[in-house]
C-alpha cells in the first residue's frame, strides 16, 4: 500500500521531470518510427507490388527482428559512440520488421481482380497505384506502424544505456535515487503513452480505411496482428 501512496506522491510532486522525460521519449520514438517507415515502406511496397524478392524482404525483416536491442547498443558504442545516434539506430532496427512485413503483405495480398478492374476502366499504372492499391493497402500499413510504435515506446528507455538521459530511462535506471516509487511512476507513464499512441494510430487506421474495405476490415486486421503469422501467409500466397 505504501508503495502505491509513494507512487502517487511521486506522480504529483515530480510532474516536471516525468513530463519532460516522457516528451523526449515520445520525440525519440517518433523519430525512430519515422526513419524506420521511410526505410521499410518503399522496400516492402515495391517487393509486394512486384511480388518478387519477397524472400529478401521477409528474411531481412526476420533477421532484424532477431537482433537484441542491448547488443546493438553495445556494438554501437564501440563503432559509432554513445549518444542520440546510438539509441536511434537500435530503435530503428526494432521498428523495421513489423513495418516492412506489413507493407509487403498489404500490397502483395491486394485482390488482383480489383487491379484488373481498374485497368479495364482505363486507369494508368500510377492511377491504379494511387487510387486502388494504396487505399487498399493503407490499413495494414498503419497497423504495422502501430505495432512498431508500441515496441519502440516500451524500449526507448534503453537510451540510458546508450549514454543519453533524455528518456524515462533516466528514472528507471536510477532506482537508487528515485526509489521504487519513481520506477513505478515512470512505468505507468510509459504504459499509458504506449496505449495512447496505439489508440490514436488505431483511430487513424480506421479513418484511412476506405468504406468498402471496412466491411472486410476484420479479416485484414486478423492478418496484421502478428508479423510471424504473416510469414506463413506470404508463403501460402506466393
Amino acid at each position, binding site marked *: 500500500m505504501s508503495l502505491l501512496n509513494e507512487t502517487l506522491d511521486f506522480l504529483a510532486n515530480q510532474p516536471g521531470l516525468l513530463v519532460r522525460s516522457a516528451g523526449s521519449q515520445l520525440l525519440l520514438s517518433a523519430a525512430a518510427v519515422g526513419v524506420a517507415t521511410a526505410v521499410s515502406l518503399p522496400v516492402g511496397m515495391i517487393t509486394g507490388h512486384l511480388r518478387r524478392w519477397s524472400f529478401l524482404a521477409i528474411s531481412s525483416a526476420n533477421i532484424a527482428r*532477431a*537482433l537484441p536491442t542491448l547488443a546493438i547498443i553495445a*556494438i554501437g558504442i564501440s563503432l559509432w559512440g554513445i549518444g542520440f545516434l546510438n539509441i536511434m539506430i537500435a530503435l530503428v532496427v526494432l521498428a523495421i520488421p513489423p513495418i516492412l512485413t506489413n507493407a509487403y503483405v498489404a500490397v502483395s495480398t491486394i485482390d488482383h481482380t480489383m487491379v484488373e478492374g481498374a485497368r479495364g476502366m482505363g486507369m494508368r499504372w500510377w492511377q491504379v497505384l494511387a487510387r486502388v492499391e494504396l487505399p487498399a493497402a493503407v490499413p495494414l500499413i498503419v497497423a504495422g506502424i502501430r505495432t512498431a510504435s508500441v515496441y519502440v*515506446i516500451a524500449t526507448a528507455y534503453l537510451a540510458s544505456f546508450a549514454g543519453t538521459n533524455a528518456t524515462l530511462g533516466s528514472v528507471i535506471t536510477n532506482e537508487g535515487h528515485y526509489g521504487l516509487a519513481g520506477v*513505478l511512476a*515512470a512505468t505507468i507513464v510509459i504504459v499509458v503513452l504506449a*496505449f495512447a499512441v496505439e489508440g490514436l494510430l488505431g483511430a487513424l487506421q480506421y479513418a484511412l480505411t476506405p468504406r468498402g474495405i471496412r466491411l472486410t476490415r476484420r479479416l485484414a486486421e486478423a492478418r496484421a496482428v*502478428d508479423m510471424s503469422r504473416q510469414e*506463413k501467409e506470404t508463403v501460402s500466397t506466393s
Partner: protein
Amino acid sequence: MSAPLTVLAGGPGGGPVIPQFGSSNGCVANTSALFCPDWVTSNWGSVLEPALLQHIELSLIAVGIGLVIALAAAVLAFHNGWFSRGFTGIAAIWYTIPSLAFFELFVPVTGLGTLTIEIGLVGYTLLVLFRNTLEGLRSASPDMISAATGMGMTPWQAFFRVNVQLAVPAIVAGIRVATVTTISLATIAAYISPLGLGKPILQAIQDSFNTELIAAGGLTILLALVADGLLVLAERAITPWQRLGRR
C-alpha cells in the same frame, strides 16, 4: 572515430596474425583499439562461455514455461471467448511494461535472482505464444471438423487431431518470436542480477571497453540468429506438408 591500432584476426588476406603484434596487454591497454582477439581467447573460458551457457539456460527455461502456460491458456480460450479477451488484455499490458522496470518492481516480491528474471521473461513470451496458438487452433474450417466427426472422431479427438495439428506452424512461428525476444530481454535482466550475456555487455558499457562490447554484443546477436535458424529448421522438419503447399 580513430582506431589506428585495430587488430583483426587473420588479417584481411586471411594470413596469420603476427605473434608479436598486438600482444594482449598492449592491445587491451590501448583504449582506442577496436577489437583485441587476444582478450577474447584469454577471457573466453572465464567470462564469455559461462555467460553464454547461462543465457541459453535462462532463455530455454523462460520459453519452455511460457509455452506450457500459453498452450494451456489457448486451449481454454478456444472454448471460452471471455477468457480469451481477459488473457489477451493482461498479456498486452505486460508487453508494454519496460522490462527493466518490471524486474526492479518484482525484486522486493521475489528477490534478487533467477526467479524474478524468469517471471519477467515468461510474461513477455505469453502474448505472442498465446495469440499464435489460438489463431492456429481457429484455422481449422468447420468443414474439416464435420469431416473428422463424420469419420467417427469424438469432439476431443477432432480437437487434438485436427485443430491442434493445424496449429503447429503458427505455434512454431510464435516460438521463434518468443525466443528471440527472450534472448534480447534476458540481456537487460543482468542489470538486476549479473547473469547471462547481459553481464559482460553491461560491464563493457560501464568500462567503455570496445573489445568486450563487440565480443559480448556479437555473441548475443549470434545466439539469437542461431536460435532463430534452428527453429526454422525444426519447423520444416515437423510440418513437411507445408512445403508441398508452396507454389
